[in-house]
Structure formats: C-alpha cells, structure tokens
C-alpha cells in the first residue's frame, strides 16, 4: 500500500523525469556515437569503440571551415542585433512617442512567423534586388530575426529598473552621459548579456533562413544538413558533444561566480 501511495505522491516527479530523459536521450546518443568507428559513410549504427574522430576533429574537409563561418556570423549578428535591439528597448521603456503600437507589432511579428515564410520572402527581396547571396545576406537575415529576441530580453530588465537610481545620480550632479555609463548601463547589463547570448545561440544554430539565403556559403548547420545526404562523419558528433559540454561548463561556472558574489555581498 505504501508503494502505491509513494507512487501517487511522486507521479508528477516520475513523469517529469521521464520527459527530461526524452529531452536528453539524443545528446547521450550523439556523445556515444562520437566514439564510433562506422563501417559505411553513415554514422547511424554502432560498430566499435574508437577515439579517432576526437584526435582529429578537423579531419573532414570543409567542416572546420563551415564552423568558422558560423562562429563569425554568430559573432557579428550578436553585435548588430544587441546594439540595435538595446536601443529599441530603451526607447520603448523610457520614452513616449507616436506609433508605439506599430513598433510593438513590428517587433512581435518576426517571432510569431514561421521561419520558412521569413526565409522565402527575404530570398524574394534579394532576388528582386539582384543581391549576391552569401555571407552578407545571411548576416542581414540573422540580425533581422535575432533583433526581436534581444528587444524583449533587454526590455524586461530595463522595465524592472528603479528610475530613482538615475534621479539620484542626476541629483549628485552626474551629467546625462555619465549617468548612462555609470548607472543605467551596469544595471541593464544582465538583460543585455542575456539578449546577446540568445542572439548568439539563435544565429549559430539557424538552419532554415540560412539555407534559403546562403548562396554557396556553407555554415555549420548547412554542412550537417548536406552530410545527412552524402554521409555523416563522426566529427559532427565530436563538435556537437564538445559544444554541449562547453555550454554546461560555461553555465555552471557563471552560476558559481554569481553565487560567490552574492555571498560576499551578504
């Protein structure tokens, strides 16, 4: 009877953990298969243990090139989207202006639009303008769809800011520029950082919009897509596993640091 009761009480925990394992199962498979030594061109069946791919991660031609294209794109897209998005967020929270509703819907719509629609229509524009598809058209597209996410992230932070802090700075004879740099920006920083991180992740992993607007430029997701047709090298799994581990370590480290800071303050 106690077993049944225990199950009843913890049903939601068990169901939740099952969902969590469903979410993590592919990552486990990706990691295991990064140590595989596949027979054919495809890395879908387990053959034997091997660390060959880990020793030679750039052993596949063009893969590391595509990775560097993706990193550069993500870097510039993050800078562009964070800059433009932060400016919009400040305007939305701090000022009154005409056409606020129109601005809000222009920012909301890209997030509510299926990616394939944005991708196809942007390609129509580029074709009509006769633009050369490549790095720059991808960058333009990435800044476009990352922008709205940065705005929402920064807006949330700036909105929860106490305006009296800035008034206090001004009362203490800080000029508008000084107030902005010494008071406003540091408080808004976590929101801006969150927006930038999000933009980086979105741009780095984007496939659909990039696929339409890339021309002959190959990003890392496009390399993976192509290899699903031609043959999947084990190195793809190595990169996937490494990125997962780096991300987890990065988050853990930032948590430890912020915990320590909080303790010092307390």
């Amino acid at each position, binding site marked *: 009877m106690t077993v049944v009761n225990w199950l009843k009480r913890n049903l939601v925990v068990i169901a939740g953990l099952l969902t969590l394992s469903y979410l993590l199962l592919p*990552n486990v498979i990706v990691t295991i298969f990064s140590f595989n030594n596949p027979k054919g061109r495809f890395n879908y069946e387990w053959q034997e243990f091997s660390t060959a791919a880990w020793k030679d991660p750039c052993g596949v031609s063009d893969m590391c090139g595509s990775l560097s294209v993706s990193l550069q794109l993500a870097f510039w897209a993050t800078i562009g989207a964070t800059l433009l998005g932060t400016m919009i967020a400040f305007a939305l929270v701090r000022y009154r202006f005409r056409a606020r509703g129109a601005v809000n819907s222009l920012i909301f719509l890209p997030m509510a639009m*299926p990616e394939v629609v944005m991708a196809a229509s942007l390609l129509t524009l580029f074709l009509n303008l006769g633009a050369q598809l490549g790095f720059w058209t991808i960058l333009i597209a990435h800044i476009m769809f990352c922008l709205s996410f940065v705005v929402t992230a920064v807006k949330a932070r700036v909105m929860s800011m106490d305006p009296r802090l800035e008034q206090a700075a001004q009362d203490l004879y800080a000029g508008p520029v000084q107030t902005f740099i010494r008071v406003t920006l540091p408080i808004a920083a976590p929101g801006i950082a969150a927006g930038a991180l999000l933009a980086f992740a979105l741009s780095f992993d984007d496939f659909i919009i990039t696929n339409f607007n890339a021309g002959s430029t190959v990003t890392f997701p496009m390399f993976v897509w192509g290899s699903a047709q031609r043959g999947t090298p084990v190195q793809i799994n190595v990169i996937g596993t490494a990125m*997962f581990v780096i*991300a987890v370590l990065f988050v853990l480290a930032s948590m430890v640091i912020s915990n320590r800071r909080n303790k010092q303050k307390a």
Partner: protein
Amino acid sequence: MATVTEAPPLAPEQPKPPRKRGRWTPYWLLLPGILWLLIFFAMPMIYQASTSVQTGSLEEGYKVTWHFATYWDALSEYYPQFLRSVLYAGSATILCLLLGYPLAYLIAFRAGRWRNLIMILVIAPFFTSFLIRTLAWKTILADGGPVVGALNTLHVLDVTTWLGMTEGDRVLATPLAVVCGLTYNFLPFMVLPLYTSLERIDPRLHEAANDLYAKPTTVFRRVTFPLSMPGVVSGTLLTFIPAAGDYVNADLLGSTDTRMVGNVIQTQFLRILDYPTAAALSFILMAAILVMVTVYIRRSGTEDLV
C-alpha cells in the same frame, strides 16, 4: 534562454513613465533597428505578395499579371501537405503539452535544490546543433533497434498502425517519426513558458485550497491549471507555429509520404525555382497561422498578453 519563451506573447505593456528628455531622442534610438525590420522583414512580405501574382518564366522574367489562379492551383495541388502540417504540428503541440507540463511542474514546485541543474539540462541541448540531435533520432528509431522492438512487444505499433501513423514494423520514415521529432525539437519552448507561469503562482493559494479540504486533483483543476493558462497559451503558440512551418524533421525522419508544406515551399523555391507558386504557398501558410493565432488568443481570453 528562458527569455525566449517568457517574453514574446507575454510582454505586458506597463504604463510608461512620462518623462520628457530630448523630443527626438526616441526616434533616433528606434530608427536603425526599425529600418532594419522594415527593409528586411516587412518589405520582403510585400515583394512576396507581388511575386505570388506574377506569371512568366525564369528565362523571360516575371511580370505582375494579378494571376490569382496561382493560389487556387497551389491549394488544390498541395492541400494534403497543408493538412499534414496542421495535423503533425497539432499532434506535436498536444504531446509537448502532455510531456512538458509534468516537467515544468517538477521544476517549479518539486525540484528543490535540483531546480537549477534541471533547468540547465533543459536548455543545454540547444547548444548541440538541432540538426545533429535530429539525426540522432535516426539511430534511436532504427529498424530492429531496441526502441522499435519494445514498442512492438508492447503492441504500441499495432495501435499506431491502426491510426495510420506507422506501417508494419517500422517507425523511421513514418508520420510517427516526424511527430516524435517535432515534439522533441520544440519541447523546451513549451516547458520554459509553462515553468515561468507556474513559478509565479503564490504557494499560499495552494495552502488555502488544501485548508479548504480540496483534493490534490481538485487543487490542480481549480487553482494551478487556470493560473498557468498564460504559460499554456504562449507555450502552445511557440510550439505550433515553428512546427507548422518546419521541413527539417519531415525531411530527415520522414519519407515522401510525410512531406509538409515547408518541404513544398523549400523545393519550389530552391530546386524547382517556381517562385510564384512558392510565394503563394508561403503567403497562405502565413495567413493561415495569423488567423489561427488570432482566433486562439481571442478564445482563450488572453488578448491582453500579446
């Protein structure tokens, strides 16, 4: 990452602090970003609308001839793919809600000191490219593999075959595999907004309900679930919209019989180069989703959230 999901449909407009500094400052701040969105988001939509009513060929060029028949032709030829998109995305959304709710509930109320760790585990897979993770499902659902074997022994496959979701002993290259991939790919977009709205619930409301002799199921039905509605609404939207336009899962995990409207738009645009048809299809998809979203938001009574 949590901001993706809590932000879009849930950005409440608070009354603005009426502060007047430079009269033109807000416009200067808005100008570059808004111009970017106007040129690279709004204008393409207009170009696309115009392309959809053009006729011509790739060699001779296209002219606007208000050829609305393209829409009719596209719909009558590709309505199965449209229906499939709605069906697959709808099933994936329902599955995401059923699977995601317990996980969000666990993180919000039962995880204790494990909360941050579970949160990281939900978000971290994002950093392994989603294409690599989707390819992993090829291994998981492989013919004769342990998962398919287990489903067979449990007679789950008999049920799904009866529903027309699988064929024989296979899961890969069937609708079930596509729905499974879609559910997997968009599950975090359901879990995060659900968690955000569950976490906001005042625990004293639960205590009050318990004090008034409500059974746990009643507490959930009358208190927890209604209060989590904003999360349910934004979660379902964030799952359904990208799933309906997706072509990656249908391509990697499905077969030619599981093609969705995204696949058609992609092939028409990038391989067949029939731009008017592709533009018309994309326009219909956009309109259909906007209508569905509007009706859904109206009916669920959360208009003020958008």
